[in-house]
């Protein structure tokens, strides 16, 4: 009878532990996304290089996001217009992981995004670049495909031991 109560108590404690470990707040939006699209010529063919700069905030006090992988998604309503993959080795608590992504696209791939941003092919070619500092939250988001949540103390202790 006593053993059963101890077992029940242990299960309850472990269960509560699991619930609290899984309670880390995941990032929900991108911080100040800015992008630049410029035409480039590669192997005598016309391509468009997209440079994207944004951040992902970790608002947790004790959880570090390790190996954060995902996609920046440009969308028009519910339709995906373009995706750009990103990878952050670590985002420490109260810190912002800076994403600096660069990818080259063909004309057919990039034009829906150019249109979404209120421009067109001619305008882009004339001005040599399309830059946007403020992108509506409706048109940009992200999806996480992989992320390991680690306690910051374990991360820091591992780092200190690694150095010693």
């Amino acid at each position: 009878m006593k053993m059963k109560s101890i077992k029940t108590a242990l299960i309850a404690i472990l269960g509560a532990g699991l619930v609290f470990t899984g309670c880390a707040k995941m990032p929900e939006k991108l911080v100040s996304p800015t992008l630049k699209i410029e035409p480039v010529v590669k192997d005598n063919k016309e391509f468009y290089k997209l440079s994207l700069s944004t951040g992902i905030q970790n608002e947790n006090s004790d959880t570090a996001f390790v190996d954060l992988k995902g996609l920046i998604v440009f969308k028009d309503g519910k339709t995906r217009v373009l995706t750009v993959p990103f990878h952050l080795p670590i985002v420490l608590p109260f810190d912002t992981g800076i994403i600096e992504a660069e990818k080259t696209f063909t004309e057919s791939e990039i034009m829906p995004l150019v249109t979404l941003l209120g421009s067109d092919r001619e305008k882009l070619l004339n001005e040599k670049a399309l830059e946007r500092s403020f992108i509506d939250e409706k048109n940009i988001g992200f999806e996480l495909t992989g992320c390991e949540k680690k306690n910051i103390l374990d991360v820091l202790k591992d780092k200190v031991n690694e150095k010693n």
Partner: protein
Amino acid sequence: MKKIDDSKIYLITAVTTLAVAVILAVVAYYSILSVEPKVEQLLSAKDNISTNYKKAYLILRDPQVFAGYSYFDAEGVSVKNSLAFFDKRVYNGEEIDTNRKAYLELLLERRKKGSVLTRNTMVFFLVLSLAFWAVFVQERRSSRR
């Protein structure tokens, strides 16, 4: 009319509040007598300053129960910024010099405040327990008469 004997309720409350006081005492005095002096000793080091400060930070990074790092008022913003700063330094293997000692002391100060809060709460529960013990004894005496 028969007098209702409330002594059992008083006894249970007295024991429960005493148990809470004991748990709080353990938490408070573990920090006051063990953790805080250790951190102070590391922060007063004259040699291997960076290594000792990092050791002190790793101790301080695990907050006192009553002084967690999840919620900050306006006064606590400097603590939040210090945590972000030191996490980055330690993770990147950068040195921590004496100029940063004040920020580590800030974190120690927060821990100390947490310990004092725990100790005061312990005293409150202890007084509550004593009051219930007194009422319990009184109730027993009157029910025997």
